[in-house]
């Protein structure tokens, strides 16, 4: 619907996927993230069982699927926020499976959350500064040596201000993050993630509960991230939103990858349509909502 404008602009751009084949587990020319046989089950229910997945560097890859397909679980596994049963994955060539959440973030893969996690009783600027890496003043002993981290703090503040400017939050910098609206919190979370200077950004349903006008602005922000050379992987279940901006789409159903390809491939994939519509019919009957 309202994603037409972005749709056309994406269409004229070059194909960033080189000559990747549209099939599950297809190899990419320059993968930043490679996952192999990742498995996670809760009791008897297998939530995630992904055989092979590669994410191309410098692209926007969307991870879609009906409710309960295991998107968020897979996301949590990759970012170290959940323990995997088995499987291994590498990020920029280094294995990062088994690493904890903060170690994954330090490696350059930062995530956001489906339910926005603004640190409500802290100012917007403090939220941002928390994202900066390698701060001397964050060590307990270092905390007392103000002269040692003052210049670093200043540099971080400048960088934070630039990002706040870009996300149009600069006027709010001294406000408590808890006083921001839902949409502003989404922007803050994205800006804060950028403060860590990541090479890959994982967005967990960035459009959930956001009004249409802000969806456009969020989509533009995501596109500009890619244009700066960052890799974006995001989970979403609204098909319309994704088609416009994604370079590549991975479709998850019942924990496994059932299809991969460019938006045009996915749109016409009968398997995807079946999985999506089939699952959504079931979902409609049981009246279930929410992911996983």
């Amino acid at each position, binding site marked *: 619907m309202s994603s037409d404008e972005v749709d056309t602009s994406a269409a004229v751009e070059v194909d960033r996927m080189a000559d990747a084949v549209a099939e599950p587990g297809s190899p990419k020319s320059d993968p930043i993230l490679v996952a192999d046989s990742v498995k996670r089950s809760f009791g008897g229910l297998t939530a995630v069982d992904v055989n092979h997945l590669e994410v191309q560097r410098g692209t926007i890859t969307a991870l879609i699927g009906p409710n309960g397909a295991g998107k968020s679980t897979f996301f949590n596994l990759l970012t170290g926020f959940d323990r995997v049963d088995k499987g291994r994955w590498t990020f920029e060539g280094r294995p990062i499976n088994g690493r904890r959440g903060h170690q994954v973030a330090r490696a350059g893969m930062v995530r956001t959350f489906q339910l926005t996690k603004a640190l409500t009783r802290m100012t917007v600027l403090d939220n941002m500064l*928390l994202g900066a890496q390698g701060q*001397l003043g*964050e060590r307990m002993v270092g905390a007392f040596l103000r002269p040692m981290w003052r210049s670093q703090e200043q540099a971080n503040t400048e960088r934070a201000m630039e990002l706040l400017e870009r996300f149009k939050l600069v006027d709010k910098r001294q406000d408590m993050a808890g006083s921001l609206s839902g949409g502003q919190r989404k922007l803050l979370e994205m800006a804060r993630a950028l403060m860590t200077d990541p090479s890959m950004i994982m967005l967990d349903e960035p459009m959930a509960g956001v009004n249409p006008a802000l969806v456009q602005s969020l989509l533009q922000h995501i596109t500009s991230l890619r244009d700066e050379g960052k890799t974006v992987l995001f989970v979403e279940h609204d098909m319309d939103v994704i088609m416009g901006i994604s370079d590549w789409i991975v479709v998850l159903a019942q924990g496994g990858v059932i299809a991969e390809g460019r938006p045009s491939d996915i749109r016409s994939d009968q398997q995807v349509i079946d999985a999506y519509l089939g699952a959504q019919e079931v979902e409609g009957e049981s009246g279930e909502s929410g992911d996983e």
Partner: protein
Amino acid sequence: MDILMILAEAARSAVGPVAAIYALAAVGLNLHFGYTGLLNFGQVGFMLVGAYGVGISVAVFDLPVLVGFLVGLGCALVLALLLGIPTLRLRADYLAITTIAAAEVLRLVYRAGFAEPVTNGVYGLQNLSSGFREVNPFDAGGRYGFGAMTFTGNQMWLMTVTWGLVALFAVFTWMLIHSPWGRVIKGVREDEDAVRSLGKNVFAYKMQALVLGGLIGALAGAMLAVHQGAIQPDQFKPQVTFFLWVILLLGGAGRVFGPIIGSMAFWFLMNFTDGFLKGLGREGLLPFLEGPDYGAIQLAFVGLLLVLLIVFRPQGLIGDRKEMLINVK
């Protein structure tokens, strides 16, 4: 009934040694709960190991009191690690359950028969303050102050050291909280997953805060030992922890001066209600009360005042109401 006398007596206790000791322990609890969001319901356990560090070193092994302080701090460090390693990776409530139980277990172990050779069981340890009083610059027999606000030289010395420690750790807290380290700690209080996603080792930060607050609690316990000169296990009941929580919430959690103001206000209220009720009793206005009833009525009275405080000023005396409301939402 001389209301002025009662007020003066209450004011005296608000600046006295006990208020100072509780303020110090609450400064530690403020680091735990006020800034890091750790639900420590066993601060009295840290006080106990601090007090017995002094007690056992001085009374049993005849060591200098300073060594006793170090032993107490060492025990608090071990206790914090033992509590933190299994629970800090889990949800916040696990720490709460573990700390309240651990503090009670410690009290029961220290009073148990098998521990008697070192702890002297239920009888406790005596003659603990001579080493501390030897270095007293005040005249031990002299009286300092004016009117009802007079203290002995020994009390002055203890108050100077304890309030000095309170001031020292208040500055310490202020410096920590106004640094990037403090920013991470406050972030952990708000949402630890968010902080983790930004590359911070949340477990390590929580552990540092637990150890630090525990050490301050142990110092308060050690000061209690030298203040009283004698300690028994049964004075370290969970009630002490709850007093500390009341002090923290009364003053304002997450404020550097919260625990200090809180402790002074709390001991003022405790002594004022006590004096007031006893005064009424002497006038024959409370014929239905027997001697031991006064203590119970007094606690209920303080409780009522605190309920009113929570209703009308949930952020505590010096807390920030705006912050409080954000949290509720």
